[in-house]
């Protein structure tokens, strides 16, 4: 097991370096001359050439890649093309923090709704409530965010005036409720599905029957024997779900007018500000890879039954 963890730890930096190389190549293949973008198109060819030299654009690609990586390791993702002379990280960090807060709120909603409901559906297997929950969750899962977002806005903000329709006021404001619900509900549907399946698997185990047979209170059996064991496989799904949520939140930020990474990345596309876009993609990949690494290793510690090749 130690060998497995060490191998994973050694492979992760290589994986990230390869991912960074891919992103870097996409950035260099991107159209438009960064020096020309920076100086404006009325500049003379000589000045553009000097700027290219100064920005290191005339160096061979491997050299540029190494210096890019060296910068990234120091937390420097280069300068923005569009916002003159500002560091990418300086622009990106506050926006990313907004998106992260939004996703944490959504994850809390997904977990609070999804896990108990999945557990309940499994316990009620054979009655009408189980298929009712499964089908309604599938409907919610298939519902595109383009539908949930406008619907929630129209109903709760425009009709009922309970919450503001759009904008951003931090983690503890009422404005976060609608977007967090929009992201959280489809993820809750995923959790219900997996929690139901894994609960069903645990319920059939012999130790659960033993616990019931020796007269343990229902509450203790449900909580200590069933729920805790059923939660284990959910951990692995958590990583993928979070990645999906993060991608989905980009669109939701646009609809709700939230100044997060989604708005920024869309602007970056149309302003051809590729350093921002590549940094965002690279940071996203880094977070995803590290999250999965932590989950996998935590998993081996929590569940001793797992064998690793």
């Amino acid at each position, binding site marked *: 097991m130690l060998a497995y963890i060490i191998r994973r730890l050694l492979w992760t930096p290589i*994986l*990230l370096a*390869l*991912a960074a190389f*891919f*992103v870097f190549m*996409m*950035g260099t*293949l*991107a*159209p*438009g001359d960064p020096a020309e973008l920076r100086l404006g198109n009325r500049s003379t060819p000589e000045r553009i050439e000097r700027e290219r030299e100064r920005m290191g654009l005339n160096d061979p690609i491997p050299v540029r890649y190494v210096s890019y990586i060296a910068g990234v390791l120091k937390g420097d993702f280069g300068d923005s093309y569009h916002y003159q002379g500002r560091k990418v990280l300086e622009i990106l960090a506050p926006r990313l923090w907004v998106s992260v807060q939004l996703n944490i709120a959504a994850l809390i909603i997904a977990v609070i709704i999804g896990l108990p409901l999945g557990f309940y559906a499994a316990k009620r297997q054979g009655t009408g409530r189980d298929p009712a929950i499964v089908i309604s969750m*599938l*409907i919610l*899962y*298939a*519902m*595109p965010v*383009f*539908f949930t*977002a*406008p619907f929630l*806005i*129209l109903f709760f*903000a*425009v009709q009922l005036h309970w919450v503001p*329709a*759009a904008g951003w006021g931090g983690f503890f404001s009422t404005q976060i409720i609608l977007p967090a619900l929009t992201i959280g509900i489809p993820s809750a549907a995923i959790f219900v599905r997996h929690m139901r399946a894994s609960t069903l698997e645990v319920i059939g185990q012999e130790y659960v029957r033993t616990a019931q047979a020796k007269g343990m209170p229902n509450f203790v059996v449900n909580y200590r024997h069933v729920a805790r064991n059923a939660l284990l496989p959910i951990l*692995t799904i958590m990583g993928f779900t979070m*990645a*999906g949520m*993060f*991608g*989905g939140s*980009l*669109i939701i930020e*646009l*609809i709700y*007018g939230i100044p997060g990474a989604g708005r920024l*990345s*869309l602007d970056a*596309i*149309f302003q051809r500000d*590729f350093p921002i*876009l*590549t940094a*965002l*993609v690279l940071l*996203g*990949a880094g977070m*995803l*890879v590290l999250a999965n690494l932590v989950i*996998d290793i935590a*998993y*081996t510690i929590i569940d001793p*039954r*797992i*064998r*690793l*090749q």
Partner: protein
Amino acid sequence: MATVSQSTSIAPELPPTRGHWRSIWARFRKRKLAFVSLVIITFIYMLGIFAPVIQTHDYQKTNLAQTQQGPSSENWLGTDRLGRDIYTRVVWGIQTTVIITITTFITGSLFLGVTMGLVSGYFRGWIDAVIMRIGEVISAFPDILLIILLAATLKPRIVQFARDIEDSTGISGLVSSGIVDYVVIGIALLPLSWFGMMRLVRGQVLALREAEYVQAARAMGTTTPRILFRHILPNVVSPIIVSVSFGIGAIALAEVMLSFFGLGVQPPRPSLGVMIGEVTARGGASVSVLRDHPEQLLAPIVVVWLLIFCWNIVGDALNDVLNPRAR
């Protein structure tokens, strides 16, 4: 990857015969919800395929005297803010989705994914290692971000390439026909489609290559391509079908999202994503447009929703019917 220890022995099966498929179809038809879903999917795809025949207007003809109208006998689903007929635009938008999902699936999932899975699982060794590592790097990125990055960086290159072809060969209308948009979206969606399929096929092939009938075929001197495509592939068809039916919804949604972002299909060519984007997210006045005319969202959204929902139901049913052991 951490895996719960499990037995992976797969009993070799005879290649499916016609009777096999007929009995599967019979079992599938018994599931009413899945069958209805399949009918709905077929209906929606038919709408898209016959768009030029069943349109009632020109999809890009604006009529500024009749903007933001409700449904009428003239405009079945009303008109949008430029007075264009929403019904016609939805039907053409479906066509866009149909073309993109089908081409992406044939090139990405079926061609790339299945061949790589066969090669990777059968030959193992360094080919397998290289393919798997590439897949791991690609799946390290959050899907949507990667798709957006690919579309944003590739698009101008491909448009330029198409212009060069137009200039050098004298063919005109390549860029304006929208084919370029389809190519860009198709390439951008590749990472979403091939790796899952490849991993699935590889896992099956790893088990099958040790099966006795494959060893027998090898001992008799059957050529490798023949073993791969005649002996192994037919036994992998069932999981491939299930995977395709689950994946198509995701591909369709990804296309809608790209167009919503303005990176996919470009106006005036209609796409469901463009139509949704025009009502919800373009400009700062999203809430007021939404408040005054929410009904314009209904048609494109219901189509997208139905497509994803029905493909999920069909996928579930196919999974039950094709892999009885999985239950």
